[in-house]
Structures are given as structure tokens and as C-alpha cells.
């Protein structure tokens, strides 16, 4: 197997100093390979979002080694966080512009990416004119415009209704396959993780540690309401429940 695109070895993250220090991540080791779709799953306080911030370089690790080997990383949030002063196309073009892509090429590439997320014809709209699901697709197009080697997603569908989320799962899976993406996807929704991931990595809470790593062998495309997804989700949920109860005392 080739070297991983992202590799964490015994990574720790501490906030604060001395006795008041909070250990958010403890000795987390994780490898994501090219083309893989890895879901990080955990209850509150497991440091999932912290982990993405570290990989994205928004925050510094306190210990261990984090190796992304100069690869470009993009990060998507629960909010689309599009800029309201730009059109839909303008938002995507901005990502290209910051990479130094020329004007004509920016327009062409943005149109292409909006096509990928099926938003052809919405290029000149303003973000507020779109629905939540559509805005999240624009955010995805903006991330794709960064042409990153790894796409980090921090509960990107958390604020959407079930029907929209279901359809966006299909879309994300399709785009992941067509564009050969490598995805590290954070969620607290067990079924979502099993629906999407090649692997589901379970984190403990406070401090966050990797407690198990499930291979999801089911063929794609999967359905979130299929029996196989439900069965594995039940197993993982049991682990998660046990982990949560541990914090009762």
C-alpha cells in the first residue's frame, strides 16, 4: 500500500497549561489513504472538530506527529459560510483566484464545478436565494475549487433536514467517486458514517482517543435505511453507548 495522504501518530492536543489544561486529543493515530472515505465518529467532547482543525493547519498539535507532507487540504463546515457580497459563481471563483488562477480560466472552471454539484443556472444568484442544501453544495464546489488532496468535512450536513441529507449523501458519494477525492468526514450520526465511509473510526470522549476502527465492506451505492447499514450502525451505537456511560461516574 502507498504512503497515507494524512497520517497522525500519537497526536495530542492540549488547551491551556498546568492543572487547568484540557486534554482534547490523546495519542490519536490515524492514517487516511488516497481515495479513501474515512468517517470520524464520536459523542460530544471527543475532539472530532479539533482533529480536523489540526489537519487543516488552523491549530497546532501539542504532541506526536502529524504528517500531511505538504499536501493541500480543504475544510468544509456545518454552515456553508458563503460570502453574501459575492454571487454563487463569485464564491467559487474566489477560491480559484486565491490560488492565482487567471480570470477567464476562473469563470470556466467555476462553471464546470457548479455543473458537478448540479447547480448549473444558479451561477449569478446570491447565496441567500438558495436553500440550505444548495448552499452546502456551493461550499462543496468552493472546496473542490481549491483542488485539495484531502477534503475535510466537519458535520457538513448536520443542519439539514433528513430528506435533503439523504440526497446529499448520494451526491457526495457520486462526486467522491467521479473526482477521486480523499475525504475525512466528521459526524455524530452513526448511520451517516456507515452510509458514507469506507472506514468508520470511533473516538472516545474527553480525552479523544481512537477506540475502534470499523471497515465498512458493504457495496456501494448504499442506502441509509438498508438492513446492512442498520446492522453495523447498531453495533457501533452499542460501543458508543458504552463509551458514554463510562462518563457517568
Amino acid at each position, binding site marked *: 500500500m502507498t504512503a497515507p495522504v494524512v497520517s497522525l501518530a500519537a497526536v495530542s492536543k492540549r488547551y491551556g497549561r498546568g492543572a487547568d489544561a484540557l486534554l482534547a486529543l490523546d495519542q490519536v493515530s490515524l492514517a487516511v489513504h488516497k481515495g479513501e472515505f474515512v468517517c470520524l465518529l464520536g459523542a460530544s467532547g471527543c475532539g472530532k472538530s479539533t482533529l480536523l482543525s489540526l489537519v487543516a493547519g488552523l491549530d497546532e498539535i501539542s504532541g506526536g506527529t502529524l504528517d500531511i507532507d505538504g499536501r493541500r487540504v480543504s475544510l468544509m463546515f456545518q454552515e456553508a459560510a458563503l460570502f453574501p457580497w459575492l454571487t454563487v459563481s463569485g464564491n467559487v471563483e474566489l477560491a480559484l483566484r486565491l490560488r492565482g488562477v487567471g480570470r477567464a480560466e476562473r469563470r470556466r472552471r467555476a462553471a464546470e464545478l457548479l455543473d458537478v454539484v448540479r447547480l448549473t443556472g444558479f451561477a449569478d444568484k446570491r447565496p441567500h436565494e438558495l436553500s440550505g*442544501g444548495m448552499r452546502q453544495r456551493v461550499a462543496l464546489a468552493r472546496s473542490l475549487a481549491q483542488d485539495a488532496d484531502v477534503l475535510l468535512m466537519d458535520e457538513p450536513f448536520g443542519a439539514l433536514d433528513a430528506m435533503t441529507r439523504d440526497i446529499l449523501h448520494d451526491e457526495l458519494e457520486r462526486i467522491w467517486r467521479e473526482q477521486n477525492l480523499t475525504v475525512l468526514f466528521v459526524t455524530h450520526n452513526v448511520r451517516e458514517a456507515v452510509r458514507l465511509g469506507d472506514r468508520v473510526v470511533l473516538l472516545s470522549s474527553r480525552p479523544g482517543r481512537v477506540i475502534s476502527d470499523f471497515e465498512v465492506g458493504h457495496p456501494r451505492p448504499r442506502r441509509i435505511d438498508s438492513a446492512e447499514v442498520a446492522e453495523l450502525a447498531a453495533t457501533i451505537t452499542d460501543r458508543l453507548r458504552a463509551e458514554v456511560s463510562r462518563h457517568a461516574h
Partner: protein
Amino acid sequence: MPTDAPAAPAAPAAAERNAAADRVTGLDALELGGATDRERLAARFWRSAWPKLLAVAIVIAAWQAVVLAELKPAYVLPGPAEVFDELGAIVTTGEFWDAVRLTMTRAVIGFLLAVVIGTVVGAAVATFAPLRAAIGSLITGLQTMPSIIWFPLAILLFQLSESAIMFVVIIGAAPSVANGLISGIDYVPRTWLRVGQVLGMRGIARYRHLILPASLPSFVSGLKQGWAFSWRSLMAGELLVIVPGALSIGVRLQSARELNEAALLIAWIIVVLLIGILIDVLFNAADNNLRRRWGLKQP
């Protein structure tokens, strides 16, 4: 449907792809909802105009009532008819437009200088923490000072000159502009800042593509407030600082009082009010346009 032809699997795959596309476009269409019914322009204009017209009518009626009650002699407080006659007469004269032009030139130049100074100071204060600690509250203090306080000093510094008026106009307006920009920069949403980081914005690019556009709504309200302060300071200045040969609106007001021409005096007051309203309408149009584009307001 049972099929055994070898080409068969391709067709269902394509069908599934189309079905997926249909689901996405169908959901989008549903979520965007029905068309909004747009009011006709005339109807919209009338809806916003009638309360204003009614308010003007009530004020004029009350004014007329006070005049009819003869609380004050007619040569001190003339009725609306006389004042509007006077107003109608002066707007056809060249002197009227010369006065308006002179005053507006001062207003615009003073305001623009205040915008430049306020923007530079605001950006600097928002960016450098020690500077903010040093003069942040000073700016707010200046903003609350009545501008008329500055005239004695301005006259000492610059004598009775254009510079004295400009000094007070700028010191009245610049703090509002600076504060508008500072609060705009302070309240850029955290998620936008994180997106900026993820997109690799640094230094000037970060200001150009994120901080400045994001602080625009607050900046515009700072401009609007700054204009109000500069207009007030200018009016006070024109009454106090009479520059020889410059027949501004303020000078006309003073001379109407000296000649006991009450109708003319009130006509000039109405002119000042109308200019204030006109500029406010322009600022509101800019503000509404911004809000509509940002989706902060229903169209």
C-alpha cells in the same frame, strides 16, 4: 422486467443517474418555493408615500392653526402660504442656487475628508491592539461631543475661514466613520474568518477579499451617521463663522433674521430640512440595496 441481453446493465445505471439528477433538481425546485408576487412600482411608491404626505399635511395644518390662533404676531410667525410663496420666489433666483452650491460643496468636501480620515484611523485602530487601547475610547468620546464646542478653538486656530468650518465638520464626522468601520471589522463572523484561513487568505488579500467587504454594512451606517454629524456641524459653522464674501445658506439665514424677514428665514429652514431628507434618502437607498443583495432584508 427480465432481461438477458449483455448491454442491459448499462441502461439501468444510466436511468439511475438520471433519477438521481431529477431528485436533486426536484428538491431544489421544492425548496426554492413558489414565485414571489411582485408589487407594481406605482403601488409600492404609493404605499411608502401616503404616510409621508399625511404627516406633512398634519404639520402644515397645525402650523396654520397656531398662526390663526395669533399666539405670535404675523410678522414673527407667518403662515404656511406666505412661507411657501417666499420659497417659490427664491428658488427661481440665481443667488439661491449659489448659496446651495456653496454650502453643498463645503458639505461634500468636508464629508469626504472625514471619510478618508475616519477610514484610515478606523482601520488602524481595528488592526493594532495597542492603538485601540490608546485611542479606542477617545474616538467614542469625540463622537458624543457637540460639535459647536469646537468653534471657539477653530476660530482661534484658523480665524474666520473655510478651514475653521472644515476643521469642525471633519472632527464631527470622522469619529462616526471610524467607529462604523471598527465595529464592522470586530463583528466579522468567526466562520467567515475560518473560511478565509482555509482558502489561504493572508495579509492584504485577507483585507481585500474578506475583512473590508464583510464590514461594509456597518461601514455604511457609520457613513450615514457621519454625514448627519457633518451636516449639523456645517450648519452651526455657517451661522458662527461668517467668511467674508461667501454667501452660504447659513449667511442667508442670519441676514433674514437681521432684516426681520420671518417668511424668508423659515423658507431657508425648510431648504435645510429638504436637503437633509434628500441625502438621507440616498443613504437609505444604498443601504437597502446592500441589504437586499446580502439577503438581510426581504425584497
